[in-house]
């Protein structure tokens, strides 16, 4: 892993340490409550077909349904450019992924990587996972995609 991404992970983990479990829960809930995707036309053009969506409305509906899935894995990281904090909610069964920009407080994108496993391996040294365990949210810095 390149040093920049290790540094970003450490900085993100430090930021999470300052957040209570309740604050993380509020953030996750805010993401799961997202209803709309900005720049919908563009994201639909890029990813509508891979979601089996014939219309923009179908694509956005798939986005909302994805966010309602109970078994999503929740990751967060700092984007190198501007160190904006991002969140990604990933369905481990399908690879479908919703992105959320914490700084903008808005959903960002919804897509499925062609090879979800390769993509997630690529991020293992960069992202931090947050997991709900024994009643509270905790950060997991040394997560692995294959569990």
């Amino acid at each position, binding site marked *: 892993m390149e040093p920049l991404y290790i540094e970003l992970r450490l900085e993100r983990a430090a930021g999470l340490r300052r957040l209570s479990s309740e604050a993380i829960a509020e953030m996750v809930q805010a993401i799961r409550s997202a209803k709309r995707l900005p720049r919908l036309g*563009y994201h639909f053009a890029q990813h509508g077909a891979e979601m089996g969506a014939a219309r923009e409305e179908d694509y956005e509906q798939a986005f909302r349904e994805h966010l309602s899935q109970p078994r999503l894995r929740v990751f967060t990281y700092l*984007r190198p*450019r501007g160190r904006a904090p991002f969140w990604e909610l990933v369905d481990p069964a399908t690879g479908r992924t919703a992105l959320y920009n914490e700084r903008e407080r808005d959903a960002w994108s919804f897509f499925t990587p062609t090879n979800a496993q390769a993509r997630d391996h*690529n991020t293992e040294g960069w992202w931090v996972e947050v997991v709900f365990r024994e009643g509270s949210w905790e950060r997991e810095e040394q997560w692995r995609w294959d569990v």
Partner: protein
Amino acid sequence: MGRIETAELLRKYEHYLGVLEGWAQTWGGGQLDMLHSGEVFDILWLRDRLAEARLSETQGRALRRADELLIKHRAIVAANMPPRQEESPESRWWWHMDEDSVGTPRSGAAQFS
């Protein structure tokens, strides 16, 4: 993940870049946000697989056209680079688009291989 046919890899690579090209003129400000790191990883992963594939002449021409779009929009790619793969030599220029000295294909017939 099952094996993906070369034609499908190429179709997805062309699609990403074709949509990017089509929307870039109307995007307005914040153009660097047209891709995120997950999409850039996808594009570069597809390009890796295409580099390993045996392409027909028609597919080779299509790949060159798509590569030209990748280079045209390199600022957007470079701004959203994911961690570099350990096995990314400079010949795989698409993984080095955020570097000044590399990140474009060498001249000559093999430039897009």
